[in-house]
């Protein structure tokens, strides 16, 4: 821990301050390379960046540790989010910058009969499966909370869907032999915390880990994972928030008592209340670790504020998800939810993935018009208009409404 790099870093940052300054700005947002996320109260504008290797144009939320948001327009027209537009979220700045596929080992240890260290070559010989699954940050859409809460100020784009290929976690655990006293499985990766900070590690109950759906993935959408999305291995926990989808996974520890680490016991906890919602002044409510996702739906072919033709039918399309269940139906409303029009849903590519939808809404009169989209899941859970609030800014899945100007 020499001081040198810190001082160099500080000098560099100070020189940036000197060179910086917002300047006078009169050109439109797109010409400045900015995007407006419409976050209530702001700040709402973010730069677009193409500076991250393997990534196309992304919304820059934070350069270190990287937080890159997928623009909604990049999700338009595909059920599977392209790897080069898939959102990126790391907690600590010391992220893996180099992986040698021959030296890499996945270690399985703890309450096991025989600890094993699997090479990638060994993993590639094991039985495989594929699954379509949505990876959504627990705090996706946090920037839309009212009142606002601290944390990564995402719009709706900390989400993506991919077809994942890999091996069953169960099969890997069986290679080590789970001991009879194991109760949870803890996962961590190649990212390392600052000195004395807690290792980023997340745990699943043993029964969940052994359910045959949880995957150790080595491909997404038919290609190896981008480094920024967790090369060479990533845990895939279908239907659950991405905090459990540990990136650059290299350590799996069987625990004989529940995980009491910071990232399970203190962070990523939600109120144990309906829809994980509480009043903004609530105190002392019970909490549980965040877990399953709920239904969500988005219009992808029109942005908030778009101009559309009045007095003509309007084509809408987008994506929907059921969360931990499939999509049963998608409905549109142009009157604030008084009446609903059923959308047509596209092919079902797996209950944990996005489902495409499209609809034609009747001619809109001139003026500002609100378009709302609602998903109902196969388990009967429907999105509602009521906002969700909790201090972590987690679990938002209320109905999204955009305003278009018909003229």
């Amino acid at each position, binding site marked *: 821990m020499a001081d040198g790099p810190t001082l*160099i870093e500080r000098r560099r940052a100070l020189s940036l301050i000197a060179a910086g300054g917002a300047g006078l700005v009169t050109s439109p947002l797109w010409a400045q390379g900015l995007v407006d996320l419409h976050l209530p109260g702001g*700040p709402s504008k973010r730069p677009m960046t193409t500076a991250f290797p393997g990534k196309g144009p992304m919304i820059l939320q934070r*350069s270190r540790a990287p937080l890159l948001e997928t623009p909604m327009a990049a999700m338009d027209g595909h059920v599977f989010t392209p790897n080069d537009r898939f959102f990126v979220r790391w907690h600590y*700045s010391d992220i893996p*910058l180099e992986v040698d596929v021959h030296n890499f080992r996945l270690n399985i240890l703890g309450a096991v009969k025989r600890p094993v260290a699997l090479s990638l070559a060994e993993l590639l010989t094991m039985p495989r499966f594929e699954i379509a699954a949505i990876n959504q940050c627990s705090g996706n859409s946090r920037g839309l909370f009212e009142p606002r809460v601290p944390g990564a100020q995402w719009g709706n784009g900390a989400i993506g869907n991919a077809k994942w*290929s890999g091996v069953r976690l169960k099969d890997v655990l069986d290679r080590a032999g789970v001991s009879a006293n194991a109760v949870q499985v803890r996962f961590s990766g190649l990212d390392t915390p600052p000195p004395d900070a807690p290792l980023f590690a997340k745990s699943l109950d043993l029964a969940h880990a052994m359910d045959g759906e949880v995957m150790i993935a080595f491909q997404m959408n038919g290609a*190896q994972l981008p480094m920024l999305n967790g090369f060479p291995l990533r845990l895939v926990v279908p239907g659950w928030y991405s905090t459990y989808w540990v990136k650059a996974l290299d350590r799996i520890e069987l625990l004989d008592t529940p995980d009491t680490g910071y990232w399970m016991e203190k962070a990523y906890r939600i109120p144990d209340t309906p829809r994980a919602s509480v009043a903004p002044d609530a105190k002392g409510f019970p909490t549980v670790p965040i877990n399953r996702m709920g239904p969500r739906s988005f219009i992808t072919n029109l942005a908030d504020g778009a101009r559309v033709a009045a007095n003509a039918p309007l084509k809408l399309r987008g994506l929907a998800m059921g969360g931990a269940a499939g999509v049963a139906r998608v409905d549109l409303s142009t009157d604030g939810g008084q009446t609903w029009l059923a959308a047509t849903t596209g092919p079902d590519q797996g209950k944990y993935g996005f489902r495409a939808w499209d609809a034609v809404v009747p001619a809109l009169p001139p003026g500002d018009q609100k378009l709302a989209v609602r998903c109902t899941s196969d388990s009967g859970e429907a999105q509602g208009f009521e906002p969700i609030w909790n201090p972590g800014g987690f679990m938002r899945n209320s109905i999204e409404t955009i305003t278009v100007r018909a003229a």
Partner: protein
Amino acid sequence: MSGARRFGPAALAIAAFALGGAALAAQRGPAAKSVSGGGITLSSTTLSLPEEKAAFPAGAAGELITNNCTACHSAEMILNQPLLGADKWKAEIDKMRGTYHAQIAPEDDAALVAALTGLQAARP
């Protein structure tokens, strides 16, 4: 390497360069670059992160925030926060120091909270 990587993009770029493909290829030969099985090939990869561009406004307050907060994360994390108020900024400082062991001297807290709230008050 793991120590150097913690200190930001300049150090990151140097580390990535030092560990880059040429040296490794010379040691292990071209065969070390990928593994295959069952029709899938995984190839060794490196990542070089871009330089940070965001910074705090010039002046003593900006310097204080830079020195206390940017060892672990870049400036956008603070610049993008909604209006938080002094109590919430103090809670953030306590969390960064308590949980993540950020090197923030407690005697700087009052000035740091003032700098952070001042930064937000000056926003358009």
